[in-house]
């Protein structure tokens, strides 16, 4: 049932109806029992009274035989005689009967109460036997009349009820509407809103019961508004960041077109090729960010082999011009991390690209392992200039490009790495090595480490063994 109002109305209607019905049934039964009790008592009283009149000779049974009743029956119309009396001799002769009493014997039994059917009508009969005078007094009630009496009482009770029931239904309906009014108000407020209106609902005058719903809704509105603001900001920033490389490409293209000098033209065309690569990378990174943020992939728990991924990336990423050597420690290939391989690849790719872009020609990039408290750190260390200390806090911001920038950098790599690692439950640590160069660390909490040298092992609680020579420099938390 969709409507709470209808639902409440039906529930209340049924329960109220059931209560009323049981009350009516109870009243019917108890009233009937009470009336029968009273009428039986009256019957008994009447029987005894007639008997005592006979005994005290007030009624001469022998004389009375054959006589008309002394008083004429002047019975008002519409009046049903309720009691019938018969006096029988013990031999079975009808000595006398009250007016309207049937001529047939009311009962064959000797004493007490009984029920008989005479001419299709049921009688309740009380018999008193007077053995001394040889008569039996039978006093009877017609059950049809008795039933009518009971029914009259019940009808008298039920009639007002039937009138009240619709009024009660109306009251219930009205009360439900009143009770649900705060919900209606919220629904009207929500349905009247334009899609852009994410202002919170007024929670001051809402009922206590729906205050949690209103609060949750307001919380949701705030989150959606925040998300929308971030997206708007990001889109604006991304568009802005794309304009500079586009301006560079256009300028170089115009130089190539305008210059008659083949050397200048060739140089401009080469610059364009580099610029296209760089812009392509920027676009790829923007798409990576939106893919991570959308989280629609439904990230898996891996396992990821960080060593194998890093080796694959080292081979895949172009660094030929610089003749770099990228070393991946063998321990990394024995480790398994409960983390989506795509997320790890995104983070590692951007960290490695960063290291490659900042490495001097002929430099070394070392990938190794270190421990930091309970966390296992996958370390990527380069021999570049590092990051100025005052910029360490800012470099993870999107589009931030510090003083030691690489010519091809976009200012997005570290932001992507951090975003991807956060999605996987890891974190990104950055610090400068003592000898210069940047140490980028992927901090993997112990709960995500799936064993060393035991591929696909079940989650281990024991800490990984301390490796003899993980990296040259142990990592400290900032």
């Amino acid at each position, binding site marked *: 049932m969709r409507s709470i109002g209808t639902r409440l109305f039906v529930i209340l209607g049924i329960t109220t109806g059931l209560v009323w019905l049981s009350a009516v049934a109870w009243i019917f039964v108890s009233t009937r029992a009470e009336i029968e009790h009273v009428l039986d008592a009256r019957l008994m009283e009447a029987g005894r009274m007639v008997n005592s009149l006979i005994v005290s000779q007030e009624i001469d049974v022998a004389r009375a035989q054959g006589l008309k009743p002394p008083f004429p029956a002047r019975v008002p119309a519409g009046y049903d005689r309720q009691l019938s009396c018969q006096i029988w001799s013990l031999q079975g002769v009808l000595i006398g009967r009250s007016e309207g009493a049937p001529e047939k014997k009311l009962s064959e039994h000797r004493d007490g109460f009984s029920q008989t059917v005479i001419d299709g009508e049921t009688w309740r009969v009380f018999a008193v036997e007077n053995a001394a005078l040889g008569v039996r007094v039978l006093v009877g009630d017609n059950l049809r009349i008795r039933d009518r009496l009971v029914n009259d009482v019940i009808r008298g009770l039920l009639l007002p009820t039937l009138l009240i029931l619709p009024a009660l239904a109306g009251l219930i309906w009205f009360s439900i509407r009143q009770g649900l009014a705060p919900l209606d108000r919220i629904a009207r407020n929500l349905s009247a809103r334009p899609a852009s209106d994410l202002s919170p609902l007024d929670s001051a005058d809402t009922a206590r019961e729906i205050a949690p719903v209103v609060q949750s809704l307001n919380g949701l509105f705030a989150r959606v508004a925040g998300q929308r603001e971030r997206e708007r900001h990001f889109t604006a920033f991304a568009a*802005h*960041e794309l*304009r*500079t*490389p*586009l*301006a*560079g*490409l*256009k*300028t*170089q293209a*115009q*130089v190539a077109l*305008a*210059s008659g000098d083949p050397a*200048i033209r060739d*140089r*401009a065309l080469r*610059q364009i090729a*580099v*610029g296209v690569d*760089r812009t392509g990378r920027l676009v790829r990174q923007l798409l990576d960010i939106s893919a991570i943020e959308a989280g629609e992939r439904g990230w898996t728990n891996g396992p990821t082999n960080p060593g194998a991924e890093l080796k694959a990336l080292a081979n895949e990423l172009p660094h030929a011009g610089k003749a770099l050597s990228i070393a991946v420690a063998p321990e990394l290939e024995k480790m398994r991390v409960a983390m989506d391989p795509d997320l790890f690849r995104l983070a590692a790719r951007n960290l490695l690209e960063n290291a490659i872009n900042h490495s001097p020609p002929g430099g070394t990039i070392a990938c190794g392992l270190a421990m930091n408290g309970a966390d296992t750190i996958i370390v990527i260390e380069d021999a570049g200039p590092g990051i100025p200390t005052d910029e360490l806090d800012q470099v993870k911001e999107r589009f931030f*490009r*510090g*003083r030691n*920038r690489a*010519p091809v950098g976009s200012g997005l790599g570290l932001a992507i790495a951090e975003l991807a690692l956060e999605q996987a439950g890891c974190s990104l640590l950055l610090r400068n090595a003592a000898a210069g160069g940047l140490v980028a660390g992927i901090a993997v909490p112990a709960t995500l480490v799936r064993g060393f040298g035991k591929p696909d092992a079940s989650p281990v609680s024991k800490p990984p063994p301390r490796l003899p020579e993980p990296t040259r420099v142990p990592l400290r938390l900032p």
Partner: protein
Amino acid sequence: MRILIVEDDALLRDGLKVGLSLAGFTADAVESCEEADAALVGHGFDALVLDLMLPDGSGLAILKALRERRDDTPVLLLTARDSVADRVAGLDTGADDYLGKPFDLDELAARLRALIRRAEGRSRAVLEWERLKLDPSSRTVEKDGVPIRLSRREFSILRALMSHPGAILSKNRLEDQLYGWQEEVESNAIEVHIHHLRSKLGTELIQTVRGVGYRLGGEP
């Protein structure tokens, strides 16, 4: 016409430098506020092409400092942010013009020529001296309606002299007009170019003021 380009994007900086040189400017390029501040001290630039977002600060800070030093060098802002508010802020800080990225190189060159022209107090694009006519945009020189072919450097020297008619320009100032930082300046280059100009346009055109510099002379 010596231009300083302040732009942090390597691709665009290089393109601007080469492109503006092709358009007849002598262009120097720097990539940060720090370098720009250093370059602006002691060098006479005819105009400044300034990017707003730089790695170590905002281009507006450079502009503000420049105007506080009462330096009236024309400034053209070059930026990816081109909302009305940004443009207003830039112009109100003292910028003379504004171009949003991406832009057209020819338009940038034309705007720079216009800025320089106005800074020199002229409204006409074509420079005239006696029977000479010099068009900075097409880089042509005519004497009595007859085109005369000049090299890039000869043209630059003539343009500098014709835009300050009557004034004496020092040899250093003329060298500034011709050479960027990275370019090797030969010690007698100016004399050689002046000699060529005299032989092409007439010996009386450029007078040598001993120990001071050069100026436009009488009847060419």
